[in-house]
């Protein structure tokens, strides 16, 4: 397998070091290798089923190119390969930096990290949608459809969806969003943010939703009192984002979309477990998410209390 991969890569990149398969996803492989003195990472489709609402590798590569051209801190996209040993793939720069959330919240991260996050997000939200015509619009209604497909009763999630329907803020103009912008999908070092990773959930959406996703409690990695991903309070992040975008995003919008992010992740836990239960990807890791979703449901109840629901 490794020899085949090396041969396939040499055919397009010239001489390369022995590729190393990195641990991780069921639907995508990641290979690390060096070529011509450059540190590279190859993302390649794997055997597993690709989720709905995620970009193909070709489109993910195009988003990465657009973001890179606009000066967003991302791994430099190198090459899209339609057929790499039988599957779609692309090559990008291999970034150095910590990506594991549990480690980042324990690191001495610089104070400017929250501001850097806001700066990158402002650049992403300024990307021109017409450049990326394949991006789909997302809506809260899609969450309901996903929950119905799971087919299990989850009153806490229903209560969250009910509140989101009743309290929707005036919609904002849709922008290009990252779709999974949070600690865990950012490479960080002692100088702060190195790169924004994992663009497969990019789509068109309300910018407030993207801005608030990093507040979801599940991504605070055991430091729950620091609302922005376990590293800081949300206010400086929000202020910097407003300064740069002029969007004048209100704290209530963050609250609303933080709740929406929790509802989305609670449903995400169920759909991940479904991948195991339906036999798409048999895995203990996916299976247990079906039960750990109760943590997210508890947070939904907690946030509803904050909003005055009784």
């Amino acid at each position, binding site marked *: 397998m490794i020899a085949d991969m090396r041969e396939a890569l040499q055919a397009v990149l010239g001489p390369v070091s022995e590729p190393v398969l990195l641990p991780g996803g069921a639907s995508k492989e990641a290979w690390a290798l060096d070529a011509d003195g450059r540190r590279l990472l190859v993302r390649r489709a794997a055997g597993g089923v690709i989720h709905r609402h995620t970009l193909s590798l070709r489109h993910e590569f195009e988003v990465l190119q657009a973001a890179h051209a606009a000066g967003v801190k991302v791994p430099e996209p190198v090459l899209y390969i339609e057929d790499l040993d039988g599957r779609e793939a692309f090559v990008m720069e291999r970034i150095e930096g910590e990506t594991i959330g549990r480690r980042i919240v324990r690191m001495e991260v610089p104070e400017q990290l929250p501001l850097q996050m806001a700066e990158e997000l402002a650049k992403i939200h300024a990307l021109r949608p017409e450049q990326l015509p394949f991006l789909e619009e997302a809506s809260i209604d899609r969450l309901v459809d996903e929950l119905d497909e799971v087919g299990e009763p989850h*009153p806490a999630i229903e209560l969250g969806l*009910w509140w989101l329907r009743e309290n929707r803020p005036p919609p904002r103009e849709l922008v290009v969003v990252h779709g999974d912008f949070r600690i865990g999908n950012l490479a960080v070092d002692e100088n702060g943010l190195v790169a924004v990773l994992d663009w497969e959930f990019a789509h068109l959406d309300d910018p407030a939703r993207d801005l608030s996703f990093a507040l979801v409690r599940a991504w605070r990695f055991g430091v729950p009192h620091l609302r922005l991903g376990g590293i800081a309070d949300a206010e400086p992040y929000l202020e910097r984002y407003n300064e740069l975008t002029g969007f004048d995003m209100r704290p209530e919008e963050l609250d609303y979309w933080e709740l929406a992010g929790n509802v989305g992740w609670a449903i995400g836990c169920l759909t991940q*477990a479904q991948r195991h239960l339906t036999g798409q990807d048999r895995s*203990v890791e996916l299976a*247990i998410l079906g*039960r750990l979703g*109760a943590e997210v449901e*508890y947070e939904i109840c907690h946030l509803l209390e904050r909003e005055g629901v*009784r």
Partner: protein
Amino acid sequence: MTERPTADELAEAIQEFLAGEVLPTLADPRARFRMLVALNALGIVRRELAKLPAEDDAEQRQLAARIRAGDVPTGTLARVKADVEENLQVASPRYLDRYPDGD
């Protein structure tokens, strides 16, 4: 409560993982033997679970449908939260410690 994966489905997932992914990597004959015994024990657990009566989720379904229809009288959240807490006591009991003073 009728959370999924059910206890049996979880046990099945563990069984598959141990038999499919861990067992083939074990070189030490004693560890291999003990793994086979453990898998056997897990089989007993699953057969024991299979004898339990199936749980009924009708009440949760009714509650979910009522909320979907917008019928959310005062007290609904407290009731739902208590049910979630009960699930958490099984799925992740220490998680509740992360909300000091009910915060």
